């Protein structure tokens, strides 16, 4: 039961995330598909669909509200979504102020400045 509820939820999120792109003009082959030149169009479409909902879900657990998360995923390319899916916690998140690292910088600066000057 729980599993089913989960699956349905995922599917709904996926649909929500996916919808805007499907409005794209019918009949035209999209540039995305051409550029990535993936031969298995159907398979990658399904994968993208799942990846996008996965990434949107992860953004939500990291403190982003659902509609903002959706907009943020929408700005990513398929390739980017694929590299983020399931990986967000392992990726670097640039955030520290450079002031916090001044000591390290000064230390190394003193040591290696000399090498460049030589």
């Amino acid at each position, binding site marked *: 039961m729980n599993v089913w509820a989960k699956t349905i939820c995922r599917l709904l999120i996926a649909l929500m995330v996916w919808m805007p792109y499907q409005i794209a*003009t019918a009949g035209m*082959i999209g*540039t995305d598909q051409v550029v990535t030149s993936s031969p298995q169009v159907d398979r990658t479409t399904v994968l993208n669909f799942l990846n996008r909902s996965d990434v949107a879900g992860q953004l939500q657990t990291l403190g982003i509200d659902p509609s903002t998360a959706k907009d*943020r995923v929408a700005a990513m390319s398929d390739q980017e979504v694929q590299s983020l899916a399931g990986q*967000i916690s392992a990726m670097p998140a*640039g*955030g520290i102020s450079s*002031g916090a690292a001044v000591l*390290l910088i000064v230390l190394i600066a003193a040591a290696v400045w000399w090498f460049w000057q030589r």
Partner: protein
Amino acid sequence: MVVLAALSASGRKAWQNARSLAGVFVLLLLCGCASLGPQTATLRETLPSALRERVELTEVPFFPQSEYQCGPAALATALASSGVKVTPEELVPEVYLPERKGSLQIEMLAAARRHGMVSYQLAPRFDDLLREIAAGNPVIVLQNLGFRDGWHYAVAVGYDYDWGKLYLRSGESKRQVMPFLIHEFVWMRSGYWAMVALPPDRIPATADESRWLSAVAALERAGGPRAARTAYQTFLKRWPANVNAAVGLANTHHALGELKEAESVLRHAARENPESVIVLNNLAQTLSDQGRDAEALPVIERAAALGGPFSAAVEDTKRSIQKKLKR
């Protein structure tokens, strides 16, 4: 012996840590430039061709970062220098992740598109970084300033080759001066990650044809067809033979309802690439959308005869054209 006995177990561990750290440090110094900064060592030997020795983009604005938010600050710096009116505060909901206290690289690239810019990740080369600066493009770089997790975005805005100095907008300092070697040392740890965000009518100095096309296609998806149309036009001026860019340009025309323009782009592409299934399919669809299904039918039949990975899409187009003809 006395010293050792005085050290508690945890103290000993700390001491060992410090000692190994010092060891690593000394080792690095002994190996010198070559291992600390391999690219700096190469750079030192020769100035990459056609580069000025000294460049500083003084007109690039500066947004001092508030706590943890170097991502929004760096992105605002790059966007504002391309003429986008945006503040770091407005970018916080687009790139910042509260639970990670930072911003992901991919989101930095993605957010620039939401403001109509093409974002491009540079090749991991120091001289590409210098080349972009020399071309007038501020470069966002990801550095690691801590021992482990000190990821930090800064914007490189100038360099002085003779002195081996890089100028950055970084954190709270408007003009941080960093020796090449130090910069490489902290930059290397992100795999030399760097990006530029340019308006659609420009191309980065170091752009690679296929990677730049992907960057433009990503803008088409996220930033809307109008900006992407300009980007494709700019692209085709530089690389006129690229059929995928022609498809992209036609798609943006089509999305904007400019069917005549889409048709003429696709007809030209079909003359140059008579075997392209995608071009033929999209041309047939564009003709059909103008109510010219009789003209569209032979085109789509030619596409169907060629087969290939897009044959399912081609069959769909063909069926819809045939249906319209029967009516």
